[in-house]
């Protein structure tokens, strides 16, 4: 059983996705565990999240992505246990 689980894990990475502000209101969640194939980019993760949470479409064009607490491009490769944050338009100050 354990061996089988391990075998599956090799082709998948597990991320923690964080939703803030409007993104959290849309998904109804502040955190979501995402499994995605090895070698995927942040944009691949976003596409998968858009399928799971179609409501995110409405803010897709104005969000930024952060990987492990730093802004990331769409093409950044994600690793196992990474933290991916959906950053809707900020409004500090």
């Amino acid at each position, binding site marked *: 059983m354990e061996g089988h689980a391990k075998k599956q894990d090799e082709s998948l990475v597990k991320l923690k996705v964080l939703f*803030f*502000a409007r993104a959290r209101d849309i998904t109804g969640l502040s955190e979501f565990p995402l499994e995605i194939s090895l070698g995927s980019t942040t944009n691949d993760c976003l596409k998968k999240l858009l399928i799971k949470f179609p409501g995110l479409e409405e803010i897709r064009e*104005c969000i*930024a992505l*952060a990987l492990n607490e730093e*802004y990331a491009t769409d093409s950044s490769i994600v690793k196992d246990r990474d933290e991916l944050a959906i950053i809707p338009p*900020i*409004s*500090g*100050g």
Partner: protein
Amino acid sequence: MTAEDKDLVEILEDLNPIDVAKYMNYVSAPQAGAITTFSGTTRDTFEGKTVLELRYEAYVPMAIRCLKSLCSSARASWNLHSIAVAHRLGTVPVGEISVFVAVSAVHRADALEACRFLIDELKAAVPIWKKEVYTNGEVWKENSEFLERRPELGKNGDFSGEVTAKKEHNRKHCCGAKVQMKDEDKCED
């Protein structure tokens, strides 16, 4: 004590008012001839609607990281003694301070420019959000500075306030030089 040790960055949780005197004291020093501060206060109206209160939240570890990075960028661009930046989270009643920046330097020009840089960059890139609550609804606010900056975010591999600070400088010099060159061209014509 390294330069970075002289930077104080604080994200204050619910109901903690901003202690302006504390940050002023923090940055004051006998060798500093100037202290500049910026206080952002919560307004009571937006487009004619009465604002009851504002609610702030942040991606705290990233916000602290970004603010520290901004302090380093400011130090790279200006000759500063110390910096303090504080932002409140949770409910901030109308009329209270939500964000405070204090900068000390030997000379005022450095302190003034760095203070402006810090608050402008905070509004453009530090992951903090504010919801305005009205009598008849609520809305997540959006800083125009963020929407302008968005295409560049992450392009340099990380939160790169330093590059931005230098770019601002270059832009200033660049524009100045170009205008001069145009004038010269015209003279030659």
